[in-house]
């Protein structure tokens, strides 16, 4: 056979339709779980984008720093690579502590990032691309600070509890871990949504997003609103990091935020960047779709490839996403 034919005839991509059919529902439920995590991280992109019209490339590091906080708090509390035997009350208290710590750490990093790296640029009124390059620089800096501190390999796993099936739907188990993550993420997103749409401060955020100059003319302190969006994004990313560690216990690594960050950004764009409910919808959709892709194509990296392809396709055909852009129009 001609070498080129051999080369091309080689198995480039195998479609494992059978596996997908067998695991369709378990893939769906698991995808929703990942999707909930993407959605929480996507909120950070969406909020900052909504207000500043900028992609906070370093948000993935805001997230991974939170994961480190979870790791340290839980290791400190005695969690490790095996599930601990704890009463529900103690477990909840521990997880809560870890989550609060992660939220605070992530939020602090986000706010510091805003002050140190982005605010000087805003003052100068630089164009978007300069801002993006700074953000990339910041992302790198944080990543490699962690690298130097913690070394190249992932941290030991911290197992919070061993997932157990709660009930079965369409022949697929839904476990308590999945339920916890999805439910908690939904509640957090709801809180964020109510905050932005129903409170005075939230109205300030939306006003700045829609027309920063006019918002200032209404007496809104723009700098404070911007700080607030970074803070909120950080808090949600911190919460997401707890669920991430719950789902991927060995995922605490210096570079661990990158791919997740890109996926979360893809989720934000898919739902309509700048749109809070869009972030939720986009996150859940992307989680499910990339999970199908992974099963269909047979390697975990396909999940990432599928996410990127979704991003490109959405930007090509509907750059405003499913629900449309803009923070203020979320209600429409």
């Amino acid at each position: 056979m001609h070498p080129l034919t051999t080369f091309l005839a080689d198995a480039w991509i195998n479609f494992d339709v059978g596996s997908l059919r067998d695991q369709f529902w378990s893939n769906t439920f698991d995808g929703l779980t990942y999707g909930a995590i993407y959605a929480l991280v996507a909120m950070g992109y969406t909020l900052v984008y909504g207000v500043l019209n900028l992609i906070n490339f370093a948000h993935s590091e805001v997230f991974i720093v939170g994961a480190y906080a979870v790791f340290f708090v839980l290791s400190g509390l005695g969690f490790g690579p095996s599930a601990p035997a704890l009463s529900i009350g103690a477990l909840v208290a521990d997880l809560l502590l870890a989550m609060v710590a992660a939220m605070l750490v992530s939020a602090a990093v986000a706010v510091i990032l805003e002050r140190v790296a982005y605010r000087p640029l805003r003052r100068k009124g630089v164009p978007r691309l300069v801002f993006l390059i700074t953000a990339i620089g910041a992302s790198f800096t944080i990543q490699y600070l962690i690298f130097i501190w913690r070394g190249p390999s992932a941290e030991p796993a911290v197992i919070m509890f061993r997932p157990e099936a709660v009930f079965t739907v369409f022949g697929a188990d839904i476990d308590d871990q999945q339920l916890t993550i999805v439910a908690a993420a939904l509640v957090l997103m709801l809180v964020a949504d109510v905050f932005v749409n129903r409170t005075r401060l939230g109205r300030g955020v939306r006003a700045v997003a829609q027309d920063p100059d006019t918002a200032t003319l209404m007496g809104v302190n723009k700098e404070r609103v911007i700080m607030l969006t970074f803070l909120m994004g950080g808090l949600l990313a911190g919460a997401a990091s707890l669920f991430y560690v719950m789902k991927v216990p060995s995922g605490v690594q210096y570079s661990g935020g990158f791919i997740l960050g890109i996926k979360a950004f893809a989720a934000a764009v898919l739902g309509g960047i700048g749109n809070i409910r869009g972030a939720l919808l986009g996150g859940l959709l992307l989680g499910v779709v990339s999970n199908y892709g992974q099963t269909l194509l047979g390697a975990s990296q396909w999940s990432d490839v599928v996410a990127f392809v979704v991003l490109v396709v959405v930007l090509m055909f509907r750059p405003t996403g499913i629900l449309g852009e803009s923070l203020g129009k979320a209600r429409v």
Partner: protein
Amino acid sequence: MALLELSDVSVHYGRIQALCGITLTVEQGEVVTLIGANGAGKTTTMRAISGIRPLSGGRIRFQGDDITRLRADLRVVRGISQAPEGRGVFPGMTVQENLEMGAYARRDKKSVPEDFDRVFALFPRLAERRSQVGGTLSGGEQQMLAIGRALMARPRLLLLDEPSMGLAPQFIQQIFRIVTEINEQGTTVLLVEQNARQALTRAHRAYVLETGRIVKSGTGAELLADTSIKEAYLGVA
């Protein structure tokens, strides 16, 4: 003591100077208007007063205090409120929410409902469209909303930037009548207008801007009678 006092105010956009030493005053209770051609610096003046545009020279005093370096949002708290050029209605918010934004900086939350009533009395149209989203209002309605929203801050000084722009005549009439009404209720107004005759008719005093400089000032009636003004704004000699 004048309510607002600009002395020798200069503003630059990059290397281009938009205002070259403007000096003007607005007294308590007046309607003062700024007229001038496009690019003369009217809007820049408004933005300088409300603090969105930093000065490259000069001072601004409000009620005797120097506010030259005061943050824009704090100027609202002090009592300067603006309905900006192009209205600046928040397109994704309802009329109600837009008006609430107007009261954003208010400390006396209790009297906010009164102001809602006052605004709805001035603009009954807005009351009808209370829960409609700003972006879907007509141009005239948006202008009413912008003015109403500015009033929600209970300003001492109301800045109106081209309220008649792009409006149909019946709306223009209405808007100017309302400006007078607002003024009679005790709010000082600084008005930027293209519609020179209307503006001069309504104003106690007026300034004429040309390429970043004040070239003329006087009472509305005086300027209305000025031939060079007529010539400049209609081409009639």
